[in-house]
């Protein structure tokens, strides 16, 4: 099996789809000559030309909306919104338009568009370049929401998102672009709505997304040394959510921790906790623990940023708390 970085895996999904299908094209700020602010689309201009690797002005409303319009006419555009923070500028088009056009038209139209975006702390960009806003979009009926954490997943899920007939908000994590992993020789589509069990365990289930999947795997290894067996599950798609896999895991381990980098309050983990308490109430031996960012904008100074967002230690502490509750 070949090894790809997360960045290369995203690029491979885009390029392969564009080679096979004239209807697929990408558009966004600085994606052509510069290859994207994260280098994801590096080299694609040379292969596909400026028509299909389309640089846009700094104009999120129009770029998101034009992608929607092209999708309404049967194209499969992938719009890159440079930072998740800038999804707030595109939000009117994503939330009021893309998510609802099929519905408002009584099923006449499909909007096969992907909004690729990225965020994540750990490099001190301050408050406007690293937010994790996935919960905003999970709240909107009509959108699908994906957040992949490994090269294999990001490639297979992006492929499925491009070929899904619904608008998909596709979250990537900035600090994962360099992470390497083995991927199948040929792209294997990963169904949207299917969680992945990264590590099997008996005592606690950690349900984590994005960077926190990796932090949770580290925490699980530490816990193992303390005699606690941890299962780590990544939902991978937040909408639709694979409740079955999450609930089955918690029914097995009887304890759950949810972990994400986004702010804890009203975060995606709150919904997961609600699902678990309702569907696995009689199996739970302890309250569902939540790990996420503290309730503050992201600060600039590295020591403060480190303090606000969660790390493996925070997951480990949550594992210990839940085990410490006894049966």
């Amino acid at each position, binding site marked *: 099996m070949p090894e790809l970085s997360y960045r290369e895996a995203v690029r491979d999904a885009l390029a392969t789809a564009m080679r096979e299908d004239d209807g697929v094209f990408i558009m966004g700020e600085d994606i052509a000559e510069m290859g994207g602010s994260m280098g994801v689309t590096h080299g694609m201009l040379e292969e596909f030309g400026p028509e299909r690797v389309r640089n846009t002005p700094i*104009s999120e*409303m*129009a770029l998101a909306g034009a992608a929607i319009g*092209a999708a309404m*006419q049967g194209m499969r555009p992938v719009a890159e919104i440079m930072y998740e923070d800038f999804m707030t500028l595109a939000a009117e088009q994503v939330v*009021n*338009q893309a998510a609802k056009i099929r519905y408002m038209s*009584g099923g006449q*139209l499909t909007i096969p568009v992907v909004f690729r975006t990225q965020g994540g702390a750990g490099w001190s960009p301050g408050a406007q370049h690293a937010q994790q806003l996935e919960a905003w979009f999970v709240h909107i009926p*009509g959108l699908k929401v994906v957040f992949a954490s490994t090269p294999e997943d990001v490639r297979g899920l992006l492929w499925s998102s491009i070929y899904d007939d619904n608008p998909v908000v596709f979250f990537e994590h900035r600090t994962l672009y360099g992470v390497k992993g083995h991927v199948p020789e040929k792209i294997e589509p990963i169904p949207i709505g299917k969680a992945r069990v990264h590590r099997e365990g008996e005592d606690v289930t950690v349900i984590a997304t994005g960077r926190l999947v990796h932090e949770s795997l580290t925490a699980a290894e530490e816990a193992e040394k303390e005699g606690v067996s941890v299962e780590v599950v990544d939902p991978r798609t937040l909408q639709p959510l694979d409740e079955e896999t999450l609930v089955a895991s918690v029914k097995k381990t009887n304890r759950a921790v949810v972990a994400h980098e986004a702010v804890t309050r009203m975060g995606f983990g709150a919904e997961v906790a609600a699902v678990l308490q309702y569907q696995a109430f009689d199996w739970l031996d302890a309250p569902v623990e939540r790990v996420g960012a503290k309730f503050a904008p992201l600060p600039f100074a590295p020591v403060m940023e480190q303090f606000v967002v969660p790390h493996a230690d925070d997951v480990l502490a949550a594992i210990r708390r839940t085990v410490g509750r006894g049966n």
Partner: protein
Amino acid sequence: MAKVESKKTLPESDLRDVLREMLLIRRFEEKVEERFRAGELPGFLHVAIGQEACAVGVCRALEDGDIIASTHRAHGHTLAKGTHPNEVMAELYGKTEGCSHGYGGSMHLYDVEHGNMGANAVIGGGLPHVTGAALAFQMRGEPRVALAFFGDGATNIGTFHESLNLAQLWKVPAVFVLEDNKWAESTPESQHSPIRDLSERAKAFGMKALKCDGQDVEAVYKTTRQALEHARSGKGPVFVHLDCVRMHGHYIGDPQVYRDKEEARKLAETRDPITLLRQKLAVSDEELNELDTEVTEIVEAAVEFAKNGTDPAPEDALKNVYA
């Protein structure tokens, strides 16, 4: 090209049909007001009484395959683009026979088969879709044009500026039709825009701008044909500025406390597009009555059709969320 040349102006036989269509839209809108006041129509509605020449003149100029995006004031555009009055009325009654099957309502009229990509309840919301649809036509080499309707109020919102900028930058086959009725809801243009000639905004993007009297349906048609020809030939998008009159309030029931009653009355008297066309064609009272009877029957039949329509099952609300 021969076809395009021959369609630069409307022959008189067509103009009589144009008069009929404008009258149909007028009677339809009046009936909507009446049925809303009678408490039969849910939600809230905006009629475009006074702006019939814009809807009919523009839509007549389009070719098969061209598409439109409309606004919250969408009944006229939708009818002019070919949706049957029964289907528009049924939508206003929230019936499954409606053009959006009861999911949309007055501000979300869709009819994809007839090239109507949707009314929009967010001001300027449909403008980037028109740029994007035109981009799709350009990329696929299709000789189609995407056309957006919007009002003067929309020229202040970000999507307007971003969409026109992008459209001109990429020279996509789009036409942006400003129906300048001088009111953004209750706010007069003098309070919402620092300039008096809003086509200056298009010129700022380097976009070709055409202007005409939006109450003169022939002028609207001719100007739109010119714009479409330019856009279709690959020369880039065109801004069409229609100077028009909203004869009624922003919404049905709007007491229009913000508006000079005498001035509004005068406008209705002197600038009604239906009266203007009728005078131009020298249509007799008898002929007009005949037309009126005919279209009134169509509108009455639409109300009957809508009232006898099927209510969606409540749980149908969970369909069409995803494809």
